[in-house]
C-alpha cells in the first residue's frame, strides 16, 4: 500500500480501516448510522488524513438485483451473466426468451432488467411475449444490449428503455465495456443513494466503489503478499454474501474479457444477515448431515447463537460454495476444482476459523464430492490485506 492513504471497507457486519501501518476492524453497531459509528470508533485515525487520501469501498447494501432475458444460453445469457457478475450485480433470474411464457414472475422489485439477443444483422427477435412479461414485472431500470435491428421497435414499446451497443459482435465475441459501465454506474448510484453511504462523502473526496469490484482488481497483485500459485480461487465469506473470484483457466467455457479473473456472488450464503437462507441451503444438501457428524455437532446447532455455532455456519458456507462450483451442483459455471493449486480465503471466515478447521472442510469436500485426495494449499488473508492491494501505487 502506498504512503498516506486511508482505506475503508464497509461490510454488512464489519468495517475495516487500513492505514499504511495498521488494519483495524470493528463490528458494526446497527443502532447507529455508518458514518457516526465509524467516526465514533476510528474518528482520530480518519481525522488525521486528508479527505483526498481517504478511499472507501462498500458491500453494505449487498448489490443490485438483476433479471436477464436472453435468446440463447451459450451466447446472450452467458455473456450478460458474465458482465453482470463482474460489475458487482447479483443475478436473481435468467430467462430464455423462447420459453418466457413458462417463467413465473419474481415477486421482489428488480433493480435492473437486461434484455439481450442476436447479432446486429439479425432482426425480428423479440415481440409480444416480452412486452407481456415486462408489463407484469416490477423493475426500476431496463437496458437493451442485443441486435441493433431490434432497438427501435423495443424502444417504442418499452418505457424508459436504455439502449446500448450489442454485447455480441458479428464473430460472437463479447463486447463488455458499455454494459459494464452502465451497471457499474447504476451500482454507484445505488450506493450513493443509500443515506448511510452518502454521508461517508463527508470524509472522502474520492468515489466510493463496490467491494467486489475492488477485490477483483487486486487478484493479479495477490502474489506480491501471499504464496499463491495459479490457478487459484478466492472465497470471500462475509455476513451477507459469499463471493468467489476465480482464475479463468478453471473454466471450459471461457470468454475473452479484460480481466484474468471472473467473479460469482452467492447472495444468500452469508452467516449473519442471510443466515436463514444459508441453513436452508445446507438442509437441502445431502452431505450436510455427514459433515455435521464429522464436525461432531447435531443440527440443533442451527438454533444456537454461540461461537461454536458461528464456526459451523462458516464451515457450511465454505462447503456449500465449493459444492456449488463443482459438477455436483450445476451453477453458472463449474470450476475445474481438481486443477486448483491454492484456495485463498478472505472476509469474516478468516476471523472465525483457524487454518486446520479450514483445511479440514476443504479435504472433506474433495473427498466426499470429488472422490479425490487433492489438497490445494490454503492461504488465509487474516488481516484483510487483499482489499487494500488495489490501491497499490
Amino acid at each position, binding site marked *: 500500500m502506498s504512503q498516506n492513504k486511508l482505506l475503508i471497507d464497509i461490510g454488512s457486519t464489519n468495517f475495516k480501516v487500513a492505514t499504511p501501518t495498521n488494519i483495524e476492524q470493528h463490528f458494526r453497531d446497527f443502532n447507529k448510522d455508518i458514518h457516526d459509528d465509524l467516526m465514533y470508533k476510528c474518528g482520530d485515525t480518519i481525522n488525521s488524513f486528508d479527505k483526498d487520501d481517504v478511499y472507501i469501498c462498500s458491500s453494505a447494501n449487498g448489490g443490485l438485483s438483476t433479471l436477464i432475458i436472453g435468446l440463447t444460453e451459450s451466447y446472450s445469457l452467458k455473456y450478460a451473466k458474465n458482465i453482470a457478475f463482474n460489475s458487482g450485480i447479483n443475478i436473481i433470474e435468467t430467462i430464455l426468451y423462447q420459453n418466457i411464457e413458462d417463467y413465473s414472475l419474481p415477486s421482489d422489485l428488480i433493480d435492473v432488467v437486461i434484455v439481450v439477443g442476436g447479432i446486429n444483422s439479425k432482426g425480428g427477435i423479440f415481440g409480444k411475449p416480452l412486452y407481456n412479461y415486462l408489463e407484469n414485472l416490477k423493475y426500476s431500470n431496463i437496458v437493451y444490449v442485443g441486435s441493433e435491428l431490434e432497438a427501435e421497435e423495443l424502444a417504442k414499446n418499452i418505457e424508459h428503455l436504455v439502449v446500448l451497443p450489442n454485447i455480441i459482435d458479428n464473430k460472437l*465475441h463479447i463486447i463488455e465495456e458499455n454494459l459494464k459501465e452502465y451497471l457499474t454506474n447504476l451500482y454507484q448510484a445505488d450506493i450513493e443513494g443509500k443515506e448511510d453511504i452518502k454521508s461517508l462523502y463527508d470524509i472522502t473526496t474520492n468515489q466510493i466503489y463496490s467491494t467486489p469490484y475492488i477485490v477483483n482488481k487486486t487478484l493479479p497483485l495477490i*502474489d506480491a503478499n501471499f504464496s499463491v500459485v*495459479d490457478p487459484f480461487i478466492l472465497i470471500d465469506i462475509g455476513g451477507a454474501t459469499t463471493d468467489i473470484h476465480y482464475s479463468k483457466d478453471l473454466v471450459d467455457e*471461457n470468454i475473452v474479457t479484460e480481466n484474468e479473473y471472473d467473479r460469482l456472488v452467492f447472495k444468500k450464503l452469508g452467516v449473519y444477515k442471510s443466515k436463514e437462507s444459508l441453513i436452508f441451503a445446507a438442509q437441502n444438501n445431502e452431505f450436510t448431515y455427514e459433515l455435521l457428524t464429522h464436525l461432531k455437532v447435531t443440527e440443533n446447532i442451527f438454533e444456537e447463537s454461540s461461537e461454536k455455532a458461528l464456526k459451523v455456519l462458516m464451515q457450511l458456507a465454505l462447503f456449500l460454495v465449493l459444492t456449488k462450483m463443482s459438477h455436483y451442483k450445476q451453477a453458472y459455471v463449474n470450476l*475445474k476444482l481438481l486443477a486448483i493449486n*491454492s484456495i485463498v480465503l478472505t472476509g469474516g471466515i478468516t476471523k472465525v476459523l483457524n487454518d486446520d478447521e479450514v483445511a479440514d472442510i476443504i479435504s472433506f469436500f474433495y473427498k466426499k464430492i470429488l472422490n479425490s485426495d487433492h489438497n490445494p494449499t490454503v492461504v488465509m488473508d487474516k488481516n484483510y490485506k487483499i482489499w487494500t492491494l488495489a490501491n497499490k501505487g
Partner: protein
Amino acid sequence: MSLLQEEREIILSNEHVDNFDFAEVEEFVKNANKELFISHHFAQKKKMLVQPRGGFPTYKKQFALNEFFVNANVDVLPLTIDSNTRLNDYATAKKMLRLSEESEVDMLNGYPLVNHGYRTTRKMVTHFNKPVSLRHGTPDARLLIETAIASGIFEIEGGPITYLLPYSKNFPLDKAFLYWKYVEKVCANYSKLNLPINRESFGPLTATLVPPAITIVIQLLEMLLSLEEGVKSFSVSFSQTGSMNQDIVMGHVIRKMAKKYAESINCGDATINLVYHQWMGAFPTNKDFAEQLINMSTVIASMVGADKIITKTREEASGIPTKEANAKTVANTQYTLGILNGLPNIVDEEEEEILTLEVEAIMEAVFNDPADTLWRKVFNSIKNGTIDVPFSPHIINHNEMITIRDANKNIRIIKRGNVPIPDRCFEYEKSKCDLTKDTTSIVNDIIHDIGIMQ
C-alpha cells in the same frame, strides 16, 4: 526459499505426483549422460537429426516403440503425451492407463507421463540413452515439464502461442504466457547443472495456409520469451508449406532473423537450431503417394539446411500409425538424407526481401506496444490482431487475415486484417494471385488449397 521454489513445491504436491525429491532430481540432471541432451548432438552435428512422432499409454508399449525406433536408426526419440494429461486431467489419464494395462487396448492417445511418474520413465530413458523430445500441446505444462526433466527428457517442445492458438478454444492466453514463463525458468535453471536443456517452438501452428511471415514472427517471439528467461539452446521450426521455393526462402529468413533478434536482447551466446516438419496438412490416402510426399519433405529439409527433421508416416491418412510404420519412415528418411549430397544453393532475392520486410514490420509493431513486458506486448498484439493466425480456433484470435495459394503454390496474403503488412509487400502478395474471380470461386480455391497434397 525463492518464490519460484515455493511455486514448484505447491505444483509438485499434486496428488498424482509420487513424492518428488528435488535434491535427487538435481543430482540426476547434474550427472546425466551427455547423450541424453539434444543440445550435445546439435553441437556435435555430423548430420541432420531424424525424429519420428509417437506415444503409447503403457510403459510396455512405449518401451517396445522405442526399441523399434532404435533399430531403425533414430537420432531422437519422441514421447507424445496423451490428451487428458495435456488438459491437466491426471485423474482420467490414470483411469485410462489402468484400463489400457488391463485390456491391451489403448485407451489413451499418448504416454501419460505424470501418472507413470519420473522414477519409472527415467528407467526407460536411461536404458536407451538417446535424447528424448517431449511432444504435448499443453498450455499449463508446469507439472508435466518438471516430471519430464526429472525423467531425463532434456528437450521440451511448445510455447504459449504455438501450443495454444492451434489447439485450444478457451484457455486464457495471458495465463499461458505466465505458465510457460515458469517452464522457461525451470529449463534455464536445470541447464546450469549440465548441458543446456533445449526448448523447441512448434512452427506448424494450424498447418493450414499459415503465411511464412506469421510463422516466423511467432517463432521469433517464443524464442525471445525463452531466451529472456535464461534458456541457452532453442529451436525455431516450421513445416512444409507446399511450395519448395517458399520453404527455402523461409529457412533463410528465419535463421537470419533469429540470430539478429537474439543478439538484440544480448542473448547472442544462445544456440539457435532449425527444425523442419514433414508435411503437416491432410495426407493422401494412397500410401505410395504419402511416401513420395514424405520423401519430398526430406529433400526440402536438406535444401533448407535443417538441424533436425520430424517425420510423418505413410499411414497418416488412415489412423494412428503403427510402430512398424513409424520405424519404416525413420529408416527411409535416413536413407534419403544419406544420398542427398551437393544440393544447389537456391536464392530468391525478391521473395526474401518481401518476407524480411513483412516480419520486421510485424515485429516492430509488437515492440511498439506500450506494455511493460515482452509477454504482455505479444499478448496485446494477438488480442488486437497485429498477429493473426489463419484458421485458429481460439476465441482471442482475430481470424481477419485471409490467405490463398498462387499458381506456384506459394501461400499469399489477400486480406491482411490488422496485421501491419507493409503496402508494398501486400501489393506484391496480391499481384501473385488471380483476384478477379468472384467471391465463391475464391472461397472454393481456399478450400482446395487447404488440402493441396491430397
